[in-house]
């Protein structure tokens, strides 16, 4: 079983970079997959995520909360870069979504 984890966006575009930097979560050292709204799919995907990724995620979240509390951000060289955004949850999340869609498809019948 292999889950290929993607680094950076599928296509690098200037408008993408602009939007990414504008959203601001990268200034806390977070990645895009850290800030997903935790709906049922995401919760299930997180349950399946290997422990090392969960630990890294929790570290980043804790650090971000601390930064937020102290009303500071990381020094600029530690900001998450648009090209290095680590989509660790994506393959798991997509699988969960596929499974849910399969169930929904069956329940329509």
């Amino acid at each position, binding site marked *: *079983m292999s889950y290929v984890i993607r680094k950076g966006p599928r296509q690098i575009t200037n408008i993408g970079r602009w939007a990414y930097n504008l959203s601001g979560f990268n200034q806390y050292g977070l990645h895009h997959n850290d800030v997903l709204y935790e709906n049922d799919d995401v919760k299930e995907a997180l*349950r*399946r995520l*290997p422990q090392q990724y969960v630990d890294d995620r929790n570290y980043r979240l804790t650090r971000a909360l601390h930064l937020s509390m102290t009303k500071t951000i990381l020094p600029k060289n530690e900001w998450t870069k648009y090209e290095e955004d680590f989509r660790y949850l994506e393959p798991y999340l997509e699988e969960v979504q*596929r*499974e849910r869609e*399969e*169930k929904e*498809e*069956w329940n329509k019948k």
Partner: protein
Amino acid sequence: MANSAAVSKIPLFRTLAARGYASQPAVAAALKSGDVQTTTLPNKLVVSSTETGSAISRISVAFKAGSRNETHDNLGAAHIIRVAAGLSTKHASTFGITRNVQQVGGSLSVTADRELLSYTIEVTRDNLETALQYLEKSVTGQLFKPWEIADSTPRVKLELANVSNQVRAVELLHQAAYRTGLGNSLYCPDHKVGKISSETLQHFFESNFTANRGAVSGVNIDHQMLLGYAQSLQLGSGEGAKNDNKYYGGADVRCERGGKNASVAVATNGAGWSNLQEGIAFAVLQRAGGVGPATKWGQSAGVLVKAIQAAAPNTGATTLNASYSDNGLFGFVVSGPAKEAGIAVEAGIKTLKSCSPSDEDIARGKAQLKSELAFIYETDGSLVQELGVQGIVYGNTLTLKGCFDAIDAVQAGDIKSAARKLSNKVSIGAVGNLEHVPYAADLN
């Protein structure tokens, strides 16, 4: 996996074969009932099929992947893989497998013993196509996703908690008698529950679920169709696990659990199926020794059981004959009050070592063995598994008549010479209150 996409992948000719077959099942069935057709594919997969005329088709895919193929590193893998049947594979999700099989009223089950793991699907003839498709999807390309394996841990724990003392005693007997290989328990050891990684399972799967270690058997399915199906299975190749079958006598494994009862399994070296005649001789001998009453509230007529119950009247006893492909155990299991256990075991061993069955016992043994086999062949569910076992163990299959002929060919002299071999050292597995249970070292 979208269902509609999956259905459209069915090759046209297979669909036609299934439809054509469904419209005229009874005629084809009546023609060749009882015949068993067996073909060995170039990749050594053994395919066998037969017709019984029933409206239900049963197809079984079996592999030499039972617990005897485990090593110390992956002890318990066979149990976990059995529990993981029907979980997500490369080709289908758990939900997809369950729902699609349910939708056609089918039933997918898996059976494990020390030698084999066999996956069986049962479905009405007109839905054979879907059933075969999902049997393939659940057997090949197994993935053992870590979260699904973790989710099934409670079930493993429940199964372990439900193992009866008698079964536990037989498991311990195997451990005492063979140490490794055949000595591995059918059940995952307690200390490994929840600790067998996905990678370990994957490795066990890849090395043992190969074509040359497998068999496909079918009841009420056209042989050509089954051959086509077997050829299309994506199976790996490779030698797989080699394992030990050396018998060590004079050992015991005891599990003291207190209470008022004791269950003790005692056995010496028997025979495996590598020598068919000897295997049958021990099977007849087991029936001659007694395998429990044939009538409700009745008593066993067997010599061994009678001898044990004469010495220890409150103890239940049965003759044990565990034959594997290359070796076997022959002895007895007793279960009853702890105080009687010692007397029962000693009486049993005395009879075992001086066993000389009369002609009457042998005739009864043969008759019982034949009727048991006839019952197996009569029931499609057990027949499909029996064909799989025969396919893997002998590389060929027998009809019921072939079995009867083989039993008749075994002479009284063969059975008596098998009985003389029972003077070997015994091994003991015991569970419960073991105060009075003797040690193997003192008995040999």
